[in-house]
């Protein structure tokens, strides 16, 4: 271990490390070969061993030379990029009249969107200025020594980090299986209290796994990864390798807490009220005000429920009120325009449900969310396609 040293990723002091690598290699004495120690972070560090003294005197391999050349080139490139970024940042700070030393990335984004306003739809297509590390993704460091021998036994698979990970997962799984069998023989059951809770987690998505491994993987390989992770997690003793599993899990957002519930205001009559603007459904648009306490009065564009002629729309309007058991306890005022009856009542339904959150407890909010009342229904009519009868339906086709 003492003879191993870390080779940082391209761009991060690579020249220095490479120089010291060579020096180290010259100084190094014999070391048991094939001792690889790679920590979980594949991208930031790759361990390099000093080669035995016998090989030291050999020439540096062509591959290593090419690599070193590439590394220095890349390092210089990154250096200039850094310099340019710093200068750009300084200019921006001057233009915005701020201090260049304390100019943060957020300030940069703000300045760019102010100085270069863009009407482009995709945020990725708009002008941006970021640190070179973010713009140019991390690259792998040398995977072979001066003689051209790869460090990793799975170097020739092309994706050593990925297959190493698969091996590790299977090793962990086998360890747990063995443990399970031993415990079964002894008649000990797994601890229920320590059971691994993964309800709020998700196995790392493909793109994130790729950045972590610094390797691009195929879809089927990702499926293999997620399947073997599932197998590991399914084991009753999964809590024994919690630390390992958690490295490849991503926490999920709690859905009901994503939207902040607004505090109700007080009107001149001393009643609590809350207004939701921009309630949208299909092409309808509505503003909904809910007042508490009330007598169950509903007014839509100045009319009562009879504004809607069909029963379905009326029923839809009352759905959230009925569901939260506040029917007859609140007053509803709505202004709605555009769209047909179904869309209008859908817009008002969503508005009422959003308003009612302020008058019910957290459990009810979650219940309403699960009933599908708090989701904005953004579905629109699908367009008709040419060569087809409608959005999906095809013309009848007869061969002869």
């Amino acid at each position, binding site marked *: 271990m003492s003879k191993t040293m870390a080779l940082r990723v391209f761009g991060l002091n690579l020249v220095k490390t490479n120089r010291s690598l060579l020096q180290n290699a010259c100084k190094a004495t014999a070391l048991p070969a094939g001792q690889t120690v790679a920590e979980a972070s594949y991208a930031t560090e790759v361990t390099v061993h000093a080669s035995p003294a016998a090989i030291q005197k050999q020439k540096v391999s062509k591959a290593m030379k090419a690599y070193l050349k590439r590394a220095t080139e890349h390092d210089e490139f990154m250096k200039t990029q850094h310099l340019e970024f710093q200068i750009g940042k300084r200019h921006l700070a001057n233009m915005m009249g701020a201090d260049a030393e304390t100019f943060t990335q957020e300030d940069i984004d703000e300045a760019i969107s102010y100085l270069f306003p863009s009407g482009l739809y995709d945020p990725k297509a708009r002008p941006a200025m970021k640190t070179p590390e973010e713009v140019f993704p991390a690259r792998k460091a040398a995977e072979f020594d001066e003689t051209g021998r790869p460090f990793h036994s799975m170097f020739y698979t092309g994706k050593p980090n990925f297959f190493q990970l698969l091996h590790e997962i299977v090793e962990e799984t086998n360890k747990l299986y063995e443990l399970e069998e031993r415990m079964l023989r002894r008649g000990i059951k797994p601890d229920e209290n320590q059971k691994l809770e993964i*309800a709020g987690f998700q196995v790392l998505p493909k793109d994130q796994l790729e950045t972590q491994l610094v390797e691009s993987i195929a879809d089927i390989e990702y499926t293999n990864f997620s399947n073997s992770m599932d197998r590991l997690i399914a084991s009753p003793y999964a809590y024994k390798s919690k630390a390992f599993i958690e490295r490849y899990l991503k926490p999920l957002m709690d859905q009901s807490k994503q939207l902040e519930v607004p505090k109700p205001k007080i009107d001149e009559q001393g009643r609590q009220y809350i207004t939701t603007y*921009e309630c949208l459904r299909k092409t309808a648009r509505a503003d909904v005000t809910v007042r508490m306490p009330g007598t169950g009065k509903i007014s839509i564009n100045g009319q009562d429920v009879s504004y809607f002629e069909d029963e379905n729309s009326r029923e*839809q309007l009352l759905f959230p009120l009925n569901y939260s058991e506040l029917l007859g306890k609140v007053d509803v005022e709505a202004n709605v325009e555009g769209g047909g009856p179904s869309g209008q009542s859908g817009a008002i339904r969503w508005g009422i449900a959003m308003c009612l959150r302020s008058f019910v407890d957290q459990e009810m909010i979650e219940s309403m969310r699960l*009933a*599908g*009342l708090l989701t904005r229904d*953004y579905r629109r009519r699908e367009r008709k396609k040419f060569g087809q009868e409608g959005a999906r339906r095809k013309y009848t086709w007869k061969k002869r």
Partner: protein
Amino acid sequence: MAVFYRIAIQSSIYGCRSMSMFPKHFGDPLRKKDMEDLNKSELTKFYHIPIKAALNNHSDTVFSDEIKLKMMNYITKNGNKALARGLLSRTFEIIKRAQTERLHLSPTDKQNVNTNAEKLLIEAVENSRPLLQLTSIKRGGVNYQVPVPITKKRSYFLAMKWLLDAAFEKDKKVCLPERLAWEILDAAHGQGRVIKKKDDVHKQCESNRAYAHYRWS
């Protein structure tokens, strides 16, 4: 996917049409009944799943029922669902009136007369659900009528289709709600054309049981 969702919301605000469906990872909305059946640990699983918006014909009242909604859809012609809804509610009214009349005519067995029209519809559909179906399978150049078990969904579909077919077949001078009401009442009591049709299908399947092995060989 979350990104798609955000884009979809944005696009709907700016009036640009892009999405016509919810993404795959969205869950279906739950009914209050289902939520009560689930225990707490099962419910916590849903905390992290985004839920689709409830459909515009959903409502969680005591009157809402899946079979009722399906029946309404099957009655609908040319997308005129409001009319179908009216027809079905008229059917329920006729059933209710007929049953109430029966209740008053025979005060002795009050327990035996069901006046709940919605319950009667469900009962009628359950009574007329087939278990098996004949499908023709070609083996050795000969078509055999082979009895095949059908799925739950299809059995419900067939039951409702037969009820409606029987109603449409009747005299054209009488309006649909009346014809349908009588069919439902008959089926709920285990008699009438629909039940006979179901029994016929079962009988045919029984007589063709010798061919049953052609399903897999």
